């Protein structure tokens, strides 16, 4: 490192130029990672927060938008409840609707109909649990948009009035739309088209309804069982008994609207960024090594081993990459804090650390390929002027 450090200091102009490029890539990488985590949250935070291990959809349901396409009946629900390793299974209704608050605010809502005392009941940050037919619990994010406990929401088209009785603990969104939990009975009333216009649903209406359908069966498997680990055979066994198609919680994210397209695009951009970073660093160190060709030949003639020069060159690249990636990541995190609240943006330490590590590692690979050139330098070329 003797030479590496002194050269970094001596050619600081050139190295900082390269460093700025690395730092900019790191900034971009943090912002992309934030955006990607934000979009994931926006897309599936409503599912992520559920204690569900897998969902069972009606057999043959198309994978995209499967939640709102699928319909399961009480036999399928009952069959799943009977399966081995199933701790709890509970029906869940899912549909997306437009609505308007009593303050005239237009909102989109994903209605999750659940049995109020089931394991699907969300954790609350305020208000009280589900129970009354007309009471809903909405995502905490809606609080920022002016909704309060007691706000009344009118569903478009059907005209049914629902009252906000609680807020979830943290963001609960699905397909970029805020989630509203409501009793399964109420959801069924709306799905059956029998919800009252201009009023809240009543217990009598719920009791009178003969509609035993939901969208999916939400399953919580016994801890440590094959089913809990998402074992394909275990899922298939349940599916054949119940006539359903199952997805683990993770797989079900892909069934959320737009999720797959968004994450695929973003991860592609990220990998391109890594590749560009590696190539730029490789190109820089190629030029740098060629430029030092005569100097390196002199060192080789003086008896420096190729390994010594290789180690020195790699140390130089590592110092440069680590310093400026860290700097860029710090700037990126700073910029991320300035993002407006409405942006789907979420900085998480894990993904940022991973992305930084990949940037540094791939940069080092690029640099290594360039620095490997020192092993091909002929010490004899140190003699004479230029040979």
């Amino acid at each position, binding site marked *: 490192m*003797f*030479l590496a450090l*002194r*050269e970094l*200091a*001596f*050619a600081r102009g050139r190295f900082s130029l390269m460093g700025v490029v690395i730092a900019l890539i790191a900034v971009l990488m943090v912002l992309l990672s934030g955006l990607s985590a934000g979009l994931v949250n926006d897309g599936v935070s409503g599912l992520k927060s559920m204690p569900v291990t897998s969902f069972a959809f009606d057999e043959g349901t198309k994978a995209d938008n499967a939640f709102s396409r699928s319909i399961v009946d009480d036999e399928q629900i009952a069959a799943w409840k009977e399966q081995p390793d199933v701790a709890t299974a509970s029906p869940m209704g899912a549909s997306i609707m437009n609505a308007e608050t009593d303050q005239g605010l237009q909102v989109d809502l994903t209605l999750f109909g659940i049995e109020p005392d089931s394991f699907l009941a969300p954790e609350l940050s305020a208000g009280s649990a589900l129970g009354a037919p007309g009471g809903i619990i909405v995502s905490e994010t809606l609080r920022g948009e002016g909704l309060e406990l007691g706000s009344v929401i009118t569903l478009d088209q059907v005209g049914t009035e629902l009252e906000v009785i609680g807020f979830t603990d943290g963001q609960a969104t699905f397909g970029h739309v805020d989630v509203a939990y409501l009793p399964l009975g109420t959801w069924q009333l709306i799905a059956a088209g029998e919800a009252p216009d201009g009023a809240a649903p009543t217990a009598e209406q719920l009791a009178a309804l003969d509609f035993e359908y939901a969208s999916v069966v939400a399953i919580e498997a016994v801890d440590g069982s094959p089913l809990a680990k998402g074992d394909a055979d275990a899922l298939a066994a349940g599916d054949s008994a119940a006539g359903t198609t199952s997805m683990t919680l993770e797989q079900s994210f892909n069934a959320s609207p737009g999720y797959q397209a968004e994450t695929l695009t973003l991860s592609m951009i990220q990998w391109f960024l890594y590749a560009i970073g590696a190539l730029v660093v490789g190109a820089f160190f190629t030029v740098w090594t060629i430029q030092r060709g*005569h*100097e390196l030949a*002199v*060192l*080789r*003639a*003086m*008896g*420096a*081993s*190729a390994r*010594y020069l290789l180690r020195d060159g790699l140390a130089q690249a590592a110092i440069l990459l680590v310093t400026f990636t860290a700097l860029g990541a710090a700037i990126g995190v700073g910029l991320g804090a300035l993002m407006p609240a409405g942006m789907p943006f979420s900085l998480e330490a894990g993904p940022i650390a991973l992305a930084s590590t990949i940037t540094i590692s791939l940069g080092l690979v690029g640099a290594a390929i360039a620095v490997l050139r020192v092993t091909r330098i002929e*010490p*004899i070329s*140190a*003699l*004479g*002027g230029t*040979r």
Partner: protein
Amino acid sequence: MTNTTTASTTLDTAAETRHQGLHLQDVTLELGDGEGTVRALDQVNLEVNAGELVAIIGPSGAGKSSLLAVAGALASPTAGDVRVLGRDLAAVRSDGGQGALARFRREHLGFVFQSGNLIPALTSADQLRLAYRLAHRRGRTRTFDPSPFLESVGMGHRADSRPGQLSGGERQRVGIARALVNAPGVLLVDEPTAALDRQRSQDIVKLLAEQCHEKSIAGVMVTHDHEILPCCDRVLEMVDGQLTPVRE
């Protein structure tokens, strides 16, 4: 009794080795391949003793640099023996390959190149430190003091200057100091005065001769500059890969 004998034998061998300097016997070097083979050295014999500086002159392309390359373990001869300080370079190579040759170079050979060839990023003192570090184990490098070496070439006052801040002659002096740091047995010098005026050329060559005499180094210097020859102990001429004495 036995001990004393062994010890004195070792000493004798060491002294002898030292005295053997540089020894080339029937060395031939062919460069290029196939049709374009050039015989850069043709059956060259050369004996340089410790403590003398030998000058080699000759027209361009005669093989002077090639001679230094062969003597400096930078090129292996097509035929013939090269012995440096009593060690056969072919044996060093066959024992340890390029790594062993590099090690041999940093421990026993000193190079002075045209126009110094210093590392631009390093100060004069650091040039010497780097050369020292190449040849020594870590840990021993901290205590190394480059100033006596720099002072011996009259550059003690420019220890903290980088090559860009030095004149051609000053760079060459630092280059000489760097070549001497690891106490080489053989010093190989390629056109050290190419970029210098007359007075400075004289000074540099006097310095080289003085160092060779003082430190018992076998020195070989290639040059185009006839005015500096009086400072050297012997002069040989290289023509078409063959070496003939001019002044003994």
